[in-house]
C-alpha cells in the first residue's frame, strides 16, 4: 500500500513536470510575443527590449525554465496583465468560489445519482428503471446554455424567486448560488445515474448475487452488502472525473451567471491573452486532475480487494 501511494505520487510529480515543460515551451519560448502580450501591441521595440532585459528574458532557456519553475513552486505566478496585481491574489479567491460551487453540486449529485442509478439497475427493465432512464437521458441531453436560459426564464423572470446574476458583490448569498448549482446538477446527474445503473445491472446478474439470494438473505441485505460495493467501483471513477469537469468545464454556467469562479477566469484570461494567468490556471487544473486520479487509484484498491492483495 505504501509503495502504491509513493509510486502514484511520484507519477503525479512526473506528470506535473512534463506538463510544465510543455507549457513553458509553448508559451515562453518566443520572448517577443511575451513582451507584446505584457506591454500591449502599441509598445515600441525599445520598450519591449528594455522590459525583456530587465526581467531576465535573455538568459539561456534552461536557466529561465528553472527560475520559472522555482517561482511556480513557491506560488509566485507573476503579475496579471488584466488586473495589474499578482496572479495569485486573483486566482485563489476565484478557485475558492468554484470550490464552493462544486461542493454544493457534489452534495446533491452524489446521493441523487447513486440512489437513482442503483434503484434503476436493481430491477432492470422495471417501470421504475424505465422512468429514471428516460428522465436522466432527457436532462443530460439538454445542454447547459439551453437550461440556463430556461431556468432563468422560469425562476428569475416568471416566478421572480431568485436573482438572475450570481456575482455576489455584497458578500456570500446562498440565493445566488441556487441557479448555477441547479443547472450543473440537472445537466450532470443523468450521466452519473446511467453509469451507476449500468454497473449495478451488471452486478445484479452475477453469480454471487444469485448465491446471496439463494442463501436466503433478505433482499435489502443482498443489495446493500453484496451488490452495492461491487457496483460502486465504476461510478466512483466517473464521479472523480466529474471533479475535473466541475473545475474547468463550468465556463458556460459561470459566465452566464457572472459567477466569479475559476472557469470564468480561465475564459477571461484566454480571451485577453493574460499569459501568466493562463499558465497559472493550467497548472492548477492539471494539479487537480492528477490529484483526483491519485485519490481514485487509492480508493479503488480499498473498494476492490483483488487489487489490494494481488
Amino acid at each position: 500500500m505504501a509503495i502504491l501511494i509513493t509510486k502514484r505520487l511520484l507519477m503525479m510529480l512526473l506528470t506535473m513536470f512534463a506538463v510544465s515543460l510543455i507549457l513553458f515551451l509553448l508559451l515562453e519560448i518566443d520572448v517577443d510575443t511575451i513582451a507584446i502580450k505584457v506591454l500591449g501591441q502599441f509598445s515600441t521595440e525599445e520598450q519591449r527590449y528594455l522590459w525583456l532585459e530587465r526581467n531576465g528574458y535573455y538568459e539561456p532557456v534552461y536557466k529561465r525554465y528553472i527560475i520559472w519553475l522555482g517561482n511556480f513552486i513557491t506560488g509566485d505566478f507573476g503579475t496579471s496583465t488584466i488586473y495589474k496585481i499578482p496572479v495569485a491574489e486573483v486566482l485563489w479567491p476565484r478557485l475558492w468560489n468554484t470550490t464552493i460551487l462544486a461542493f454544493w453540486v457534489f452534495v446533491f449529485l452524489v446521493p441523487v445519482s447513486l440512489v437513482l442509478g442503483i434503484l434503476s439497475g436493481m430491477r432492470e427493465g422495471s417501470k421504475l428503471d424505465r422512468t429514471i432512464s428516460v428522465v436522466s437521458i432527457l436532462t443530460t441531453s439538454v445542454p447547459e446554455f439551453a437550461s440556463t436560459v430556461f431556468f432563468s426564464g422560469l425562476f428569475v423572470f416568471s416566478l421572480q424567486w431568485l436573482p438572475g446574476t450570481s456575482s455576489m458583490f455584497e458578500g456570500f448569498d446562498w440565493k445566488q448560488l441556487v441557479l448555477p448549482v441547479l443547472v450543473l446538477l440537472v445537466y450532470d446527474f443523468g450521466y452519473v445515474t446511467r453509469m451507476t445503473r449500468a454497473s449495478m445491472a451488471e452486478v445484479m446478474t452475477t453469480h454471487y448475487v444469485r448465491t446471496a439470494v439463494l442463501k436466503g438473505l433478505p433482499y435489502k441485505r443482498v443489495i446493500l452488502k453484496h451488490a452495492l460495493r461491487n457496483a460502486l467501483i465504476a461510478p466512483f471513477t466517473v464521479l472523480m472525473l466529474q471533479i475535473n469537469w466541475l473545475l474547468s468545464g463550468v465556463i458556460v454556467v459561470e459566465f452566464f451567471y457572472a459567477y466569479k469562479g475559476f472557469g470564468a477566469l480561465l475564459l477571461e484570461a484566454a480571451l485577453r491573452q493574460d499569459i501568466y494567468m493562463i499558465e497559472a490556471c493550467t497548472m492548477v487544473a492539471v494539479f487537480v486532475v492528477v490529484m483526483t486520479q491519485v485519490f481514485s487509484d487509492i480508493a479503488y484498491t480499498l473498494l476492490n480487494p483483488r487489487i489490494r492483495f494481488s
Partner: protein
Amino acid sequence: MAEQSNEVVLNIQNLDISYYTRAGEIPAVVDFSLEVKRGETIGLVGESGCGKSTVAMAIMQYMGHNGAVKSGTIEFKGRDLTKLSEEELRQIRGKEISMIYQEPFSALNPSMRIDQQLMEVPLAHEQIDVKEAHERARQILTDVNIPDPDRVLASYPHQLSGGQQQRVVIAMGLLSNPDLLLLDEPTTALDVTVEAGIVKLIANISKKFGTSQIYISHNLGLILETCDRVFVMYSGEVVEEGRIKPLFKSPRHPYTHGLFGCIALPTADKTAAPLTPIRGQLPLPHERPKGCNFAPRCDHFAAGVCDQDDIHMEDVADDVDGKHRVRCLRWTEIEQIRAEADQSKEAAGIGHEVLKVIDMQKYYSMHDRSLKAVMSGTSVKLVKANEKIDFEAHESETLAIVGESGCGKSTLAKVLLGLETATGGEIFLNGEAIHDVSVQSRSNSQLASMQMVFQNPSDTLNPSHTVGQQIGRAITKFGVEHNRHKVRDMVMSLLDIVKLPRDFYYRRPRQLSGGQKQRIGIARAFAGQPSMIIADEPVSALDVSVAAAITELLMDLQRERKMTLLFISHDLSIVRYLSDRILVMYLGQVMEQGLTREVFQPPYHPYTEALLSAVPIADPEVSKREIVLEGNLPSVLNPPKGCPFETRCPRKVGKICEEDRPPVQSDSENHHIACHIPLDELRQVEPVIEVPDAAVA
C-alpha cells in the same frame, strides 16, 4: 449413499417450465416428475440444453423474470414451493434447501471476506449472535476438511485455490444443515485429483447429516460414484429413470445407450471397440419434433409410431431395486434388435520418428515488485514451466500429455509451436531443429507441418469472417495454393473431410454449434497437410456425444493421413482410449512415460496411481482402488526442492524425496518412472482399475 427413510422430502409432479421470450413461449422442461426421499442422492444427467439446471432453479424458485412454472407442483416437505410468497421462499432458501454451484469463484462475492459470507447464513435464518455465527462458520470449514480454517475465514475468495473455494461453497450450503442440497456440476471446473476429494467429501456429508441431494452432472462416471438413483434427461424431458446399477447395466432408452457408446470406458478401444457417437444434433427447444424428441437421431425410429403423440413414461421394472421407467414406445422391441455390430477399425502402423525433444527446458522469469522482495534481492524468480522434457513422437502415433492445471503441458505446446522458444535443450521436427526458431521466423512448410487444435473453438474463430474465408486464408498463408478457385476447391474438400456440409462455406461462426466450430478448427489445422497436430484439450469443452464424434474424427483423420497427434488432456479415460503412448507431467516435469498399456498397469508412479484412481468410470462392473490426494498443487513459483510430487505423495519415502530429484528408472525400453521408490517395490502395487474379464470379452 446414506441411510434412507421413507419420508419424502421433495415431490415434483408433472412439472412444465417455460421461458417467455419475444419469440413466444419456449418450453424448457416438460412433464418432469421426481421424488426424493430423506438421505437419498438423485442424479440428473444429460447434455447441455437438456433442462437439468432449469429443474434446479425451479426448485429454488429462481428462474429470472422470463421463466415460470407453467403447470405441475413442487412439494417440499408438504408445501408447494410454486405457491409461496417471496418471504416464505427466503426462509426456505439457504436454510432448508441450499445449492452448490459449478464455478465456485464466481459464486463467491469477490469483495467480501469468507467469514462474512459464511456467517450471514445463520445470522439471516436463526436467532444467534455474531460470535456464535463465527464459531459455526469455523466449525463447518473444519467439517469440509479445510486444514487451516482461521486463515481461510480471514481471506478473500481470490486468495484461495479452486478446490478450497469449492469447499467454502459447500460449507456455505451446509451451514444451516439443510434437508435438500442441490449440486449443479460441483466439480466440473476442478482438476481431477481435487475433484476426487470433493466427491468423497460430498458423499461423506450425505452420510453424516442425512441430507438428500440432487446431483446434476454431465459426467456419467461421477453420477455412478455418487448417486442412488439417476434421471437421464434429453431435450427437456426425462427419458429414463431408475436405480443406478440396473440402469447402468442395462439401459433401455436409445439415448441412454447412445450416451454410454460415447464415453471412453476402460472396455472401449480405438480399433477393436471404437466410440459410437450419436448422429445429428440436439433439437432447439422450439423446433422439437412431434412425438419422441430423440426420434431424428434414433437408430430404432419407426415412422408412424415414434412421431405421433406425446410419449409417456413406461415401467420397465418395479421391484426391490425400485422403479425403472423409460420414455420409449419400442423399448421391448429394441432389446431384441440390438445385436452388437462389429465396428472394429483397422489399426494404423506406427512409422518413422517425426518429433524429437531432448532435455527441453522452458523457464520464465517473474518480477516481484513489492518492497520486501526488492530489498531482499529476490525480485526476479525463475518459474520452471518445463524441466528436462525428453520424448519422441512417430508417424501415425498418438502421444498423450496428461496432467492437471499448472503442470506445464500448455507451455510445452507453446514451445513446440514456436510461440515461445526453449530456454534449453533441443527439439527436432522432421529432422529440423526448431527449439530456437520462433513462429515468426519459421518457414511455411515448418508452420504447415505442425498445427494446433484448440480447447475452446468459439474463441479461436474470427466471428466476422465466414468459414470459407478462414480456412481459405490458412491455405494461402501456408503457401499451399494461391489460385482462388483451387483454394475454394480445397476448402470444400476439407469440409468433406471433417464431415460438414459444403454450404457451411458461407456461414459465420455464430451460426454453428460448438461441435461444428471444433470441426472447422480441425479443418483449418489440416489446411497445410500437417505431419503433426497438437490438440490441447480439444473435446473438454464439448458435450459427451459431440466429444465422441470429434474424437472419432481425429482418429479417422489420423488413420487416413498418418499424422502424429499430440493430445493434451487431463482426462485419463479419453487418453487411455486414443493414445499409444502417454507422458504424465506434474509441475513441469515428466513423472512417468510409456506405452498406454504400461502406464495403466503397475509399476505406477505414485502420481499416476492417484490420477488413475481419480477418474470416474461409468461402468458398475469396474472396480477401483481409492486414493485421495491431500492438499493442493504447490505453486510453480515455489516448487519443492526434491521430487515435485513430494508434498502430496501418499507413498513418500522420507527425507530423500524432499531433498533429491528422483532418478529416472526404466521398466522397459519405453516405460520410464521418475521416483525414489525402487521399481521392484512399485511392481508390488495392485492395479488401480480392475476390469472383470467378462466385460473385456
